[in-house]
């Protein structure tokens, strides 16, 4: 039986984003901010010469102020993280090392000139640590999502294109994966990693490895609808191989929902990384992670709540930016996300 016939897709509750996408169709949050598709006679970004799906989408995305703001925020965070070595240690002290003098004299300072976010219990500048923490969060978010997309798209394509037992085996496997609540499964996998080997890569592997089933299902249903099109039959009649049909014709036309969900998933992966690091299963000191910073700051809540406040704001704003960007991409690509 296919997914379509299920009156309710039972597992997707553990990943509410997707069920919400399915339920909502078009985001109401900024429905008023979306300019809608550009009038045909108006010259597009390419001066009206040739217009592609992606060109159109980019054009619409640029007119969506909220999505654009989200994109700008993501770029700011990314650029700050990438260039951190050039300006953070010089201005705020190196947040990756412990300066014994600073640890003694500049402990748990409130925000002030020179330390915009204050300092932590070892006298390290929290602003600098938040910037360096972005490296881990963005790396995990992007690479883990990329892994999930690659596995999911490959298996979803096989499942949707070949059907029959291939489909059954892959879909029943996704059932099993989705029966595990995400956070529990990653806790389980990471708990057996010895503490001295914990770090960014096991986290990426766990999050990436657990994320694929949603992409597989999404891409499968997308492939299923695309492969019914006449141009696929035409291609087949002309003698195109399965591989050519799949890669040249079906995938480009079926990938839009994956792009939308991948954008939102980066935010989800960042949240998961923060949660795992908070539990002590993720990135280990001296590497800096937002989740770990929050865990470390808990002990000083009564005297210096800023230690906990700023890494959390960093997580919230970055995740929110990816969600809003995902909403914007969905509207721009005009993906209904109802399979």
């Amino acid at each position, binding site marked *: *039986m296919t997914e379509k*016939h*299920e*009156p*309710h897709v*039972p*597992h997707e*509750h*553990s990943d*509410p*984003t997707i*069920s*919400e996408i399915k*339920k*909502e*169709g078009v985001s*109401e*949050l900024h429905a008023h901010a979306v300019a809608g598709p550009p009038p045909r006679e108006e010259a597009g970004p390419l001066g009206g010469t040739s217009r592609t799906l992606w060109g159109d989408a980019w054009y619409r995305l640029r007119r969506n102020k909220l999505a654009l703001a989200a994109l700008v925020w993501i770029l700011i965070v990314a650029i700050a993280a990438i260039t951190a070595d050039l300006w953070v240690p010089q201005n705020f002290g190196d947040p990756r090392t412990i300066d014994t003098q600073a640890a003694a004299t500049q402990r748990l300072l409130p925000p002030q000139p020179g330390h915009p976010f204050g300092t932590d219990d070892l006298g390290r500048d929290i602003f600098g640590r938040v910037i360096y923490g972005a490296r881990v969060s963005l790396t995990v978010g992007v690479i883990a999502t990329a892994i999930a997309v690659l596995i999911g798209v490959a298996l979803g394509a096989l499942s949707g294109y070949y059907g029959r037992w291939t489909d059954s085996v892959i879909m*029943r*496997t996704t*059932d*099993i994966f989705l*029966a*595990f*609540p995400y*956070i*529990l499964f990653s*806790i*389980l*996998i990471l*708990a*057996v*990693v*010895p*503490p001295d*080997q914990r770090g960014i890569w096991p986290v990426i592997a766990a999050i990436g490895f657990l994320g694929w089933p949603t992409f597989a299902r999404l891409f499968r249903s997308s492939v299923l609808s695309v492969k019914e099109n006449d141009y696929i039959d035409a291609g087949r009649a002309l003698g195109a191989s399965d591989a050519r049909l799949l890669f040249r014709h079906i995938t480009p036309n079926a990938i839009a929902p994956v792009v939308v969900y991948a954008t939102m998933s980066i*935010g989800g992966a960042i*949240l998961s990384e*923060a*949660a795992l690091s*908070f*539990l*002590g*299963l993720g990135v280990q000191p001296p590497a800096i992670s937002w*989740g770990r910073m*929050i865990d470390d700051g*808990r002990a000083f*809540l*009564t005297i210096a*709540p800023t230690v*906990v*406040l700023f*890494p*959390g704001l960093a*997580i*919230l704003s970055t*995740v*929110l930016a990816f*969600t*809003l960007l995902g909403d914007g991409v969905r509207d721009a690509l005009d993906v209904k996300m109802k399979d």
Partner: protein
Amino acid sequence: MLEYIGKRLLQFIPVFFGVTFALFVIANYMPGADPIQMRYGERAVPPQIRAQLEEQLGLNQPVWVQYGKYLNDLLHGDLGVSNQTGRPVSTILAETYPYTLRLAVFAIIVEIIVGVGAGIISAVKQYSFWDVFVTLSTSIAVALPVFWLGILLQWFFGIWLKEATGGAFYLPISGAESAQFGPFAHMILPGITLAAVSTAYAARIMRSQLLEVNGQDYVRTARAKGLSGRQVLWKHSFKNAMIPVVTFIGLDFGAMLAGAVLTETVFNWPGVGFTIARAILQRDFPIVFGGVTVILFGVMIVNLAVDVSYAFLDPRIRFGGSEE
């Protein structure tokens, strides 16, 4: 309908074996998951003791025999003994599970009242101030790290408003029962924390469902008949819009059992999640695996129950027979 329920139950079988097999593999064959080394912690295991333990634990038997033994133990409620205390894991979990359940029930009540309520207000007064407020706040709530929210609530109510609240939420009292405050005072902050994200989703789904139903022909017919807005809402729109919401909330109960790991850790709530988090730090693997297994089974049973109850909720399945 019976056919539908039967199909659902049949589908559960491969999921059950798949999940238990995955648990078995992670516990025994993941790199770093040597069951004998786990008993020894960081110390080296002497070879003769290793051989003896392999014999004793049946680790030298074929994989499928071991899996069979694992399943058998599992079905008899034998989850092994704690490395640290030597107590049976099943006893430890039996003591902590009621706390997890209690918190989840409390959070579900919050979710139903606040989430559904906010969704209805938002949909009925579309584009009003409240609608914008609900839409914005739910967008933010969805991006919130739960553990951070819990800590912020502790700080805000426990520390910053310590005098105003009479210390009802002052650390470490929040999350622990106390005679001085009401029977639910200790549950309020953990409950809100656990419920926050789900409540936001419930509100969004309620809103979009109600808006969708309001666009249907039968609602227009009801209006055309001259029913008041209120009658249309409660007699027609609400009932139909509720079906997906009820399903979501039902499934969410399962998700809350799982999500409790973070909330319980923040509030030192003595449930299964907190026990798991502590066991991770102490490298007490039988508790970690046992705890995850127990929560997982709770989630699977809830999901199955929701799936089956869907047949009763949705008349299209009850009378139609076809699932389309």
